């Protein structure tokens, strides 16, 4: 009926089981690198197939659910697909495939240590992402949110250097700390107010709590989900840049920061309900906070010479687009937010792939050292260019999609602050990305053409192509985003 090969429940279970088994297999195959990587690839492909199957069902209207554990009366660990979760699941599963291919090239090309740890923790992080995306209630979401924080800590500290350990401490303390101090009380408060934690279309807090308290509660959620890196809880992200590039890609594109904005978006849509926020105006303040983050992070990016740092602040800025759109709390805005999650994922992973590729081939990390690199690594830098154009939001790239809806929403809501922020930040985005491209292609090359290992080039070409494809064929994410708000 729904065109699915597997039953919905089976798909849900498999989405968790496959990456978990992959982690075990990777550990078991630690001594056989080729088999170990094969395990990663096979698992990634298997997960991809399962998710595509699930997607067919969700597009046809199925909403499978699965209870994993019954924690206590009223509290359970349960999965329940909704369109937004499906979108995130699909993004993460797809990018896991690309990232696995890329990782093999990168980890071997740079002879990185502790590769088993890398692949195993990566698989666990995917496991956590699947659980988080498919979570049926806040408790489940929180559980997987924390697993994600913990499983990525070994990745951030993969280099084990003093700097890496420091970054790891900041990473863990910020993410766990914020989630404990703010997110957990927010969830418990929600439970105390409403007696339920199950996500519901349209939210379930309407009328149960006053506008001021609702604004406070929203604040707890937004800052509690520090993975969304809303200022001032953004410092962990640039610090985590010490990790190898595939890890950065995981943090910025596949899972971690997306988990943050996903949480916020999910809470806005399925806990508060956008209509409730709209009528109470409880999210108005957040537009300003997110807007400030967008602009301030862009300025920092503008002044950063380290390429990955520049990309990191670009992420901080882009994430707050999503948060700002969520705060606008109109159907159009949250559609834009959902699309921007997809668009940012595929373009930012392209940018990081390219940065890692440049590092692998040339050991260049500074923007100022990238003169002529585009002439030497045309594929890599062409992909970088596409990713950068997407960050700016130019057609024909995916970045256009989200901005389109956000601007329409901001204008429709007559929120001129938001419109102004998008305009200014777009120019700033261009101001910190274009010089890299110009430098790379226009300055004379100081050596022969020498691309990074094939696996990396294949991966980054694929994601760059995805960035354009998503623009040309936005149908599936758009349908999911619309279904999310029921229009």
């Amino acid at each position, binding site marked *: 009926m729904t065109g699915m090969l597997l039953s919905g429940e089976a798909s849900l279970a498999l989405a968790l089981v496959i990456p978990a088994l992959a982690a075990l297999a990777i550990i078991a195959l630690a001594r056989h690198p080729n088999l170990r990587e094969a395990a990663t690839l096979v698992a990634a492909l298997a997960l991809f197939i399962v998710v595509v199957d699930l997607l067919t069902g969700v597009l046809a209207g199925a909403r499978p659910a699965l209870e994993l*554990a019954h924690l206590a009366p009223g509290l359970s660990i349960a999965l329940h697909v909704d369109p937004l979760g499906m979108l995130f699941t699909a993004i993460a599963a797809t990018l896991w495939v690309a990232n696995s291919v890329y990782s093999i090239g990168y980890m071997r090309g740079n002879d990185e240590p502790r590769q088993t740890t890398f692949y195993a923790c990566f698989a666990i992080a995917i496991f956590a992402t699947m659980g988080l995306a498919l979570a049926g209630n806040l408790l489940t979401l929180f559980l997987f949110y924390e697993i994600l924080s913990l499983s990525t800590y070994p990745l951030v500290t993969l280099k084990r250097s003093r700097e890496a350990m420091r970054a*790891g401490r900041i990473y863990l303390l910020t993410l766990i*700390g914020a989630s*404990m101090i703010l997110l*957990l009380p927010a969830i418990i408060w929600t439970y105390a107010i409403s007696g339920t934690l199950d996500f519901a279309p349209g939210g379930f807090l309407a009328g149960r709590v006053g506008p001021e308290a609702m604004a406070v509660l929203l604040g707890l959620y937004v800052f509690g989900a520090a993975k969304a890196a809303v200022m001032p809880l953004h410092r962990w992200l640039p610090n985590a840049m010490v990790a190898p590039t595939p890890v950065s890609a995981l943090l910025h594109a596949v899972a971690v920061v997306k988990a943050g904005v996903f949480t916020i978006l999910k809470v806005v849509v399925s806990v508060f309900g956008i209509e409730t926020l709209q009528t109470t105006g409880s999210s108005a303040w957040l537009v300003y906070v997110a807007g400030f983050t967008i602009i301030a992070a862009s300025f920092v990016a503008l002044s950063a010479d380290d390429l990955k740092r520049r990309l990191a602040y670009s992420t901080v800025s882009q994430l707050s687009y999503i948060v700002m759109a969520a705060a606008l709390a109109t159907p159009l805005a949250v559609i834009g937010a959902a699309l921007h999650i997809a668009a940012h994922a595929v373009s930012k992973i392209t940018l990081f792939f390219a940065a890692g590729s440049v590092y692998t081939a040339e050991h260049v990390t500074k923007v100022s050292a990238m003169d002529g690199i585009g002439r030497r690594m045309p594929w890599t830098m062409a992909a970088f260019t596409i990713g950068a154009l997407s960050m700016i939001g130019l057609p024909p790239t995916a970045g256009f999609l989200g901005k389109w809806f956000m601007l329409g929403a901001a204008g429709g809501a007559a929120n001129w602050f938001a419109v102004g922020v998008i305009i200014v930040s777009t120019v700033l985005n261009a101001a910190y990305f274009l010089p890299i491209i110009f430098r790379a292609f226009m300055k004379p090359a100081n050596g022969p053409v020498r691309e990074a290992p094939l696996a990396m080039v294949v991966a980054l070409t694929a994601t760059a192509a995805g960035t354009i494809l998503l623009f040309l064929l936005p149908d599936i994410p758009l349908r999911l985003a619309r279904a999310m708000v029921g229009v």
Partner: protein
Amino acid sequence: MIAAHLPVLVVLLPLFGGLLAALSRHNEAAFWIALVASIATLAAAAALAGQVMAGGPISYRIGGWDPALGIEYRIDAVSAPILLLVAAMGVAAIVYARRSVTVEIIPERVAWYYTMMLICLAGLLGMAASGDAFNIFVFLEISSLSTYTLIALGRDRRALLAAYQYLIVGTIGATFYVIGVGLLYLSTGTLNFGLIVERLPEITSPRALIAAEAFIVVGIALKLALFPLHAWLPNAYAYAPSSATALLASTATKVAVYLLARYLFAVFGIQRSVGPISVADALMALSLLAMFAASLAAIFQNDIKRLLAFSSVAQIGYITLGLAIANEAGVTGAFLHIMNHALMKGAAFMAIGAILISAGSSKLDELAGIGRTMPVAAGALTVAGLALIGVPGTSGFVSKWYLVLGAIEAGRLWLAILIVASSVLAVLYVGRILEVIWFREPAKRSLEAQAVPLSLLAPTLVLAALTIWFGLDAGFPVELASSAAKALLGVSKGALP
């Protein structure tokens, strides 16, 4: 037939087991006696818990005497979980002791050690089972004396000092307690809890009662290491033999907390104002201080056992905080945490004990990379650590959930934030351990660590597994804890005006 005598059997079984073990004078035989006795005790406790959950409180009169004259054993929803917990931890600690004593105890004293463990168990169980204030004092002394011995049996010379310190402090506590009980008796003319509660409304001048309360509460507070009366605990836990530490950390303080709850809710009334502040507020202030000060102290420790000991002080703060919140969710949280903390701290101390036995050190800086050579023990320690933080999926999360829920339902969002904020301190001290044992290059000691026998690891792993089990399916402990909370809050209506 036996079922009717279960309330007293649960105390007598370990007591006689202890005597037998002392008589056997043979290490191996003593172990088996202890094991059988403790398993029998656990069975008895489980049966009792089942009866209570099914049919309500059980009253047992020793020798058939009327409670006004004789001693009543009373098992209800509040004490049943404690009995179950103590008995279960007893089994785990004894299984664990089989191998740990071979390294930590002089062979001639091993049988004696098992005896002391059983007697200590008997004392603790007695405190929980008895419904008679003075009888509780007797059991308190029994458990304390055996505890001093257990600590003193540690090979480290500092263990003797720690035992001595605990002896002094424990004696002060017991003395305070017995003075309080005396005052209570003077006021009410009875030592039976039920009768005391019945007669309370008739008392016109509560001054003596208030003095009794002061003595009893401070006395118990010393035993449960309530901040700032906690200073004996770090040394005692750090230098006691591993199995003793595991037993004490997961039972002794918990029973004291139970006693405190009993007195505060059933007898004195927790919401009552003494002078300008209520008892609850004072307890809350001390609990918060414990949570933060002890967690901070834990961060700066280098010896993992001491670190965990400070962590215990902090975690006891959570429990007393739950009592101080004094609504159903809060007290449920407190009782949940009594059980969950026992499991996780038991696992943690057993794991570090295994590491200590194998690698010869419990110092943080000497155990770098121990996760490489002892993955199972380090894994158990990790699970316990995550539970201490309150990571979801572990039992620590569930108890924290109820505590925060209690705070929010009491309309105190700030308190909720403080509770979770202090668990961030746990992130720091647990994080230190995890970083060192997993993410550092192995140190010399770590590389030389030998394989650990299964009998050490099995109870450790069982406790760690339970920590996760109760984190994912908390139905059973929550049911126990919430009926305990309901029982406590239900009787507190009859407390002092």
